[in-house]
């Protein structure tokens, strides 16, 4: 295996390096990728067409919104895939693989610190989601941070404690609803007579101009992404940490 790996690495590496000399210099503003009308349009016109100052958010949620919908679907797929691979709904007694990793004791310092941190983390996550139009961040990043706060609960106490907040069923509902919110914006624009995901037409049902309709729809879409990502990140963790039994975490 090692010699096979070495051969393929050498061939691939040589192939990739042979093209490096052909690339434009690093940081060249006049390289084809940076000067072609595609990226120029995204830089100069995004604010005029969507009213969003963060170009990345606008391109992510509007120009390439279809991609982002499937990005959310990838996350959702991963969540469902991990449940279908690992989850065991029937408890068949003692399992040799899931012995306790260490003795669990409630730790005062850990518990208090997490109690203190979790509200702040969640508040920050909400800020990241809501402020994605104006600063780095957005639904995905905020969703991961929000999911991390639930992971912190599960880590600091027990998976059961976290389950009281977010039962398995509710997690999956949240994930599905997130995608439905996203695709719902697309479907709404379809019903109003435009193509899938054309938010501008939504101004008919929003008190806003077409450009502002794009702005507000993007926020809605980001919230949908955040729902799915939060739910699936926690779901993946709880499955991996309990080896699919959902009984006890790490």
């Amino acid at each position, binding site marked *: *295996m*090692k010699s*096979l*790996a070495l051969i*393929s690495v050498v061939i*691939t*590496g040589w192939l*990739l*390096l042979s093209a*490096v*000399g052909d690339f434009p*210099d*690093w*940081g*060249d*503003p006049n*390289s084809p*990728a*940076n*000067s072609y009308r595609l*990226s*120029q349009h*995204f*830089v*100069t016109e995004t*604010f*005029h*067409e969507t*009213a969003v*100052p*963060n*170009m*990345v958010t606008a*391109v*992510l949620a509007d120009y390439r919104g279809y*991609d*982002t919908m499937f*990005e959310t679907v990838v*996350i959702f797929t*991963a969540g469902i*895939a*991990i449940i279908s*691979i*690992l989850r065991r709904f029937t408890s068949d007694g003692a*399992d*040799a*693989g899931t012995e306790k990793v260490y003795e669990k004791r409630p730790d005062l310092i850990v518990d208090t610190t997490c109690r203190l941190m979790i509200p702040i983390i969640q508040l920050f996550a909400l800020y990241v989601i809501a402020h994605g139009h*104006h600063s*780095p961040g957005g639904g*995905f990043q905020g969703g991961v941070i929000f999911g991390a706060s639930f992971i912190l609960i599960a880590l600091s106490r027990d998976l059961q404690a976290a389950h009281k907040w977010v039962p398995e069923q509710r997690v999956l509902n949240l994930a599905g609803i997130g995608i439905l919110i996203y695709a719902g914006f697309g479907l709404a624009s379809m019903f109003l007579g435009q193509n899938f995901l054309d938010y501008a037409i939504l*101004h008919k049902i929003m008190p806003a*101009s*077409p*450009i*502002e309709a794009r702005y507000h729809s993007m926020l809605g879409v980001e919230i949908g992404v955040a729902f799915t990502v939060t739910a699936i990140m926690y779901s*993946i963790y709880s*499955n*991996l940490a309990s*080896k*699919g039994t959902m009984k006890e975490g790490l």
Partner: protein
Amino acid sequence: MEFFEAISAKFNYWIYVIIMMIGLYAMIAKTNMVKKLIGMSVFQTAIILFYVSIGVKDGATIPILYHDQVHAGHHHDDHAHNGEHYDTPHGTDHEADEYGYPSRHAPDVVIDGDDFANPLVHVLMLTAIVVGVSTLGVGLAITQKLHREFGTIEENEIHDMIKSGK
């Protein structure tokens, strides 16, 4: 010296290939499944590094308009700095679309294309990071299932167990 310049202008691309090959080697040569998955993540992040390197422009800043820049067009507006409030200046002589709304938002804001890094590659790589973590999660779940069934996470040991008849 010429050689040094040729490298220094593109050293990002050189090192991305090195990192990527480290990952590829681990994906093929390692027998431990978790190691293979770490190698996979290294491999994928190297590709993301390559894409991000494409979008760099000398002298450009992050692809987010500054607060002041956004409001530069609103000099007629006294409340320009009262928060995130970018409403369209109605009643000016801007072209209107079929619904009677202005077809461009804040038309007097002029943005120079060379001032901001290429946002497109950032968008693509956000998606690629998501794909990477999803694949990592599924790979880890399969690893755990294999550990549950065979009691090991070494691929060659599992092969031996199958060959010797369970």
